Each structure stands twice: as C-alpha cells, then as structure tokens.
C-alpha cells in the first residue's frame, strides 16, 4: 500500500514536476483539442453539415431538416459523450484520491455492477422498454450499490483504513455481477438486448436524456473542482489528513456523494464504460503530477476528449451507428496508457 514510493510524481525530475505555467498550457491544449473535435463531431455523419448551419441550428432554429438533424441526433450524442466522459474521469480521480489505490475506479464503488443489475432485472421482469426508463433505473441501482459499499466499508472497519472500503467494493461488485450473470445465463432475450448497453454507447441519446442527468454531472464537476484542495489532503491518508485538521470520515462521505452523482449519471447515460474512469486519472497523474487541483480539471477535459474522440472515430470508420464506443475507447486509450505506464510509472531502473 505504500503508494507514494511507486507514484511517478514522487520523483522531482523531468516533465513530472511541471510548473504551473506548463500545466496551464497543457490544460489549454486539451481544451482546444476538445472544442475542435466536438465541433468536427457535430458536422460529421451521413450528411455533412457545415459548421455555420450548426451554429444557426443552435441559435436560430428554423425547423429545417438539417437543423432538426443537428438538434435531435448530432448534438445530443456529442453532449452525452462530453458529459459521460468528463463525469467518469473525474469520479475516477476522486475514487483514486479516496482509496489511495491505483486499481480504484468508480466501478469499485459498485456503480457499474449496480446499474447493470437493475437494468437487467427490469428488462427480465417487465420486458424491454424505452431507454428513457433505463436511465433512472441505472442511476438508482448505481446509487444504492455505492451506498451499500460505503456503509459496509466505512462502518465495517470503523474507518480505520481505506482497505475496508476497497474490499467492500470488490465484495458488492462481485455479488451483483454474479446475480446479473445468473439471470443472463437463463434469459437469452435479455442478454441479446443488454449486451449493447453493457458495451457502453452514446448512440441514439436524446436531448431529454442528456438534459436529465446534466444538472447532476455539472454540480458534481463544479464541486469536485472547488474541493480539489481537500482531495489532495484526503489522498495523503487518514492519519496525515487528521493531523492537518481534516475530518477524513466526513470528507470521504462527501467524496462518495460526488462519485455517485458523477459516475451514476454517466453510467445511466452511456452504460458502464469502465476504462475512462480508471485510466484517464492515471494519464493525468502521469503527465501532470499528483496535485488533485490539477488532476481534476485535466481529467474532466481528458475524459471528455477521449469519449468524444472515440465516438467520432467510431462513426467515421464504421457506418453502423451502433458500434459500441467502449470498445473504441479501449482501442485508442489503451496503447497510449501502456506507453505512459511503461515509461513513467514505478521508478525506472
């Protein structure tokens, strides 16, 4: 568990001790890339729509076919990708700060397993409905699972260490995943429907769906940005945090609420895209250092960039609109992550 030793930014050398200015520059670079890719993503599709008419559609909607296409299909999809990506990445960063564990991701709080279980249960019991309904069931399942994990982990070990939280997460996730597979093994039609959902996708999302979860995600993001300072303290471990005057139990609870808001909404919107929450914070930490005041904005932009970029590449390469974005995220993100991990992690000898 001695994390500090292995964490790259403990070494004060090279690009790891980025100055404030170069960090700001990196952040701006990612932001510009994100804006460019998002704009490009809206114009791209079976019908190419020039950027000018996209602007017109947003600010002066006239009900033409082109404007309708932008407002009901393209824009919601890009917005969903932006929201889900940034929410997952930031919740992953918070999770890693809370648990001090490089293997931690929002999934470890049972978010993905809880959402998947409720969706599968609802599909099996009531048949397949519209995806509007799954949104709330998934959110509900994710929240419940996370609360159970937190209760078990914090009170189960009286808050002595984060090992309790981590193990409790593994327990609840395993239990729910086992239940889910038990249902799916006997119910082929649900498996057939749910496999697209579990792969993670932002295809066919409506403006209403994006708008439904947007407030939670925006509140969560804003809070995470404002509380970055406390997350740094929290990531030092309970003892250090307490001696710095922080109440680690209270802040851990706040962090869990943030994770539920962020990751719960993201999973409800886009399905369990595990990779983003796990890897984007690592990428941020490996490039920018261990300061969570920087990791969080960087993760938010980086996660959004990864999901929007992957979805756009997927739409460009495969005409089938249903190609799951989760797969492309892994195909694009993993090699980059492997390169970073190989070159920067764990004290090269």
């Amino acid at each position: 568990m001695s994390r500090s030793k292995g964490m790259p930014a403990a070494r004060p050398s090279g690009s790891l001790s980025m100055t404030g200015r170069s960090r700001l520059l990196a952040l701006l670079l990612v932001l510009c890339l994100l804006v460019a890719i998002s704009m490009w993503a809206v114009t791209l599709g079976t019908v190419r729509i020039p950027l000018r008419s996209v602007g017109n559609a947003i600010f002066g909607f006239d009900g033409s076919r082109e404007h309708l296409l932008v407002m009901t299909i393209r824009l919601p999809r890009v917005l969903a990708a932006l929201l889900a990506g940034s929410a997952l990445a930031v919740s992953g960063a918070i999770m890693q700060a809370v648990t001090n564990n490089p293997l931690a991701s929002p999934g470890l709080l049972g978010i993905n397993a809880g959402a998947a279980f409720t969706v599968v249960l609802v599909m099996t019991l009531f048949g397949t409905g519209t995806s509007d309904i799954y949104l709330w069931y998934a959110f509900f399942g994710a929240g419940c699972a996370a609360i159970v994990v937190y209760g078990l982990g914090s009170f189960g070990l009286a808050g002595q260490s984060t090992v309790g939280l981590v193990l409790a997460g593994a327990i609840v996730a395993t239990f729910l995943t086992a239940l889910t597979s038990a249902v799916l093994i006997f119910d082929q039609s649900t498996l057939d429907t749910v496999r697209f959902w579990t792969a993670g996708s932002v295809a066919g999302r409506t403006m209403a769906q994006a708008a439904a979860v947007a407030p939670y995600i925006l509140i969560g993001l804003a809070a995470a940005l404002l509380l970055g300072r406390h997350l740094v303290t929290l990531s030092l471990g309970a003892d250090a945090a307490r001696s710095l005057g922080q109440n680690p139990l209270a802040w851990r609870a706040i962090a869990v609420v943030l994770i539920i808001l962020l990751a719960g909404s993201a999973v409800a919107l886009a399905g369990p895209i595990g990779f983003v929450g796990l890897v984007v914070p690592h990428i941020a930490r490996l490039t920018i250092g261990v300061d969570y005041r920087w990791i969080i904005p960087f993760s938010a932009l980086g996660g959004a960039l990864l999901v929007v970029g992957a979805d756009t590449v997927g739409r460009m390469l495969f005409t089938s609109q249903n190609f799951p974005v989760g797969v492309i995220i892994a195909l694009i993100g993993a090699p980059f992550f492997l390169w970073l991990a190989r070159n920067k992690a764990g004290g090269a000898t």
Partner: protein
Amino acid sequence: MTRLLTVLIFLLIGLILASLAFGDIPLSWRELFETITGSPEANLQNVMIVFDLRLPRVLLALLVGAALATAGTIALAVMRNPLAEPGVLGINSGAAAAVMVVIVLLQDPPAALLPAAGFLGAVAMTAAVYLLSWRGGTSSLRIILIGIGLSSLAGAATTLLSTFGEIGDVQRAMIWLAGSVYDANILKVRLLFFWLIIPMALAWMSSRELDLIRFGDNSARSLGQRVDLVRGVMILLCTLISGAAVAAAGLVGFVGLVAPHIASRLVGPSHARIFPVAALTGASLVASADLVGRVIIAPAQLPAGIVTGLIGAPFFAYLLWGRRHARE
C-alpha cells in the same frame, strides 16, 4: 493453528461426503457408506453415480479452489495491493478473450479446444504484461498499470465479439466463462493434480521469500533478496497455477481474492501459515459453491463461479463486519 487446520479438514470431509450424497438422486448416508466401502449390497447405479459423476466433480472443485487460493496468495504478496488477484496479471481477461474468439469465430469448436484456448490465452496475456513492464527490472505498480491497460484491450475484443457474435454462441461462452465443474472426469482430475503439485509445492517452499518481498522492494533488496528474480519466478508460478485452474473450470472468480484475505485474518501475516489455510479455504469455497449450485435450483444448475460470488461475497462481508472494531 493445528486446531484451525483440523477444523478446516473436517469441514472439507463433511463437504465431500455431502457432495457425494446430495444431488438429483439423493443417497441416504447408509447407501453412501455401502457404496463407498464396496459392500455387496451396494446398488450398481449408486456406484456409478458416486464414483463416475460426483467424486470427480468434487475432487476437481477442491483442486481448483486450492489452486486459485494459492495463486491469489502469491499475487497478493507480490503486488502488495489488497485488490490483487491473479486477474490483475491479465489471466482472466486473456482467457476470456481467447475462449470468446474460439467459440464465436469457429464453427462448432471441439470441446477439448476450450481449456487449451483458456490456458494459452491466460499465459500469453501474463507473459505480455510481464514483458511490457520489464525495463531493467519490474515494479509492482508498473505491473498493475500495464495489467490494467492490456486487460482493457483484451476486454475490448471480448466485448466486441459478444456484441456482434451470434447470440447462442455468446451465451455458451458466458456459461463457460462463468466457471463451472460440470464436465469433470477422473482423467481431468488426475491431469490437474499432477500439473499443480510441483508449482504449489514450490510456492509453499518459498513462503519466506514472499514474507520478505511484501515489505517493499527496497527493504527486501537490502535484506539480501534478489527482488526481480523472486518476483519473476512467483509470477510464473502464479500463472501456471491459476492458468491451469482456468483451463479446468473457467473463470471461478472471487476465490483467489478472498481466500488469502480470510486466511491472513485467521492466522496472521506469515505465508508458511497462510498457504495451507488459504488452500483449504479456497477448496471448501469452490466445493460448497458447486454443491449449492447443483442442488438449489435442481434439475437446472448454477455454475460454481456464480455461486462463489453469491455465497462468498456475503460471507466475506460478514467476516469484515465481525472484525469492525479491530485495528488494521
């Protein structure tokens, strides 16, 4: 310690007897006794049920459980992470991807191909993780991160195949991957036993090295350990053991994670004590999971890998809860 081992062994014997007696055709204890002792009154059908069907199955479950627990103990020590289990090395994701490829892309693959594919996938994946994280030495963190990266690549392949594959094939792959000991026979049990005996003995004999390496690379090195050599050998042992378990039974999850934790809570941090207790715990977990899985909704059966999650998780939660006032 002796008392604990005795209790565990008695528990195990009880489980074996129960597994032999219960099932679609329940045997009374008297019938079971007659069958086992080979008394002339034994019914021929019962002899077949006990020796050809139930005995290999329970033996396979025991071996798989012990193997997973041993591999998990090694991974826990080498990775120094409470979440470490053989899956961190990419074993599960590699096996899953390989099996998915074989089932979805080949027309009617022969049944014998699946274990081979699972084993090869697991070994190839671990080798890739280890080689990619080698840069004049390894570190636990780098292995963990590379494992995450490669696993997500393999996971992407699995997801892709399961999203676009023929639904019947996907379901078949899911059942295989869920981990089960349905198709046990005595040949398979023997094969697994002889495969496991050397790596498991080696692992147990290197308990002291594991005790050392857990202190961290620097401490272990300054105490005279050749850290990279030990870590490499241990990862090799872990792969051989859990790869074979995966080949025999698919992905029986959770045992590798939980058995070492239970063992170290019971007998403290010394690996010489953890290994036997973890192995017995893992064996009882898988054997009881299989027993429950084939009795609870008979005549249908739940794969053991699912039941380990369903039973093992609440049990472990209960253990955590019971020790909530103990300091870590």
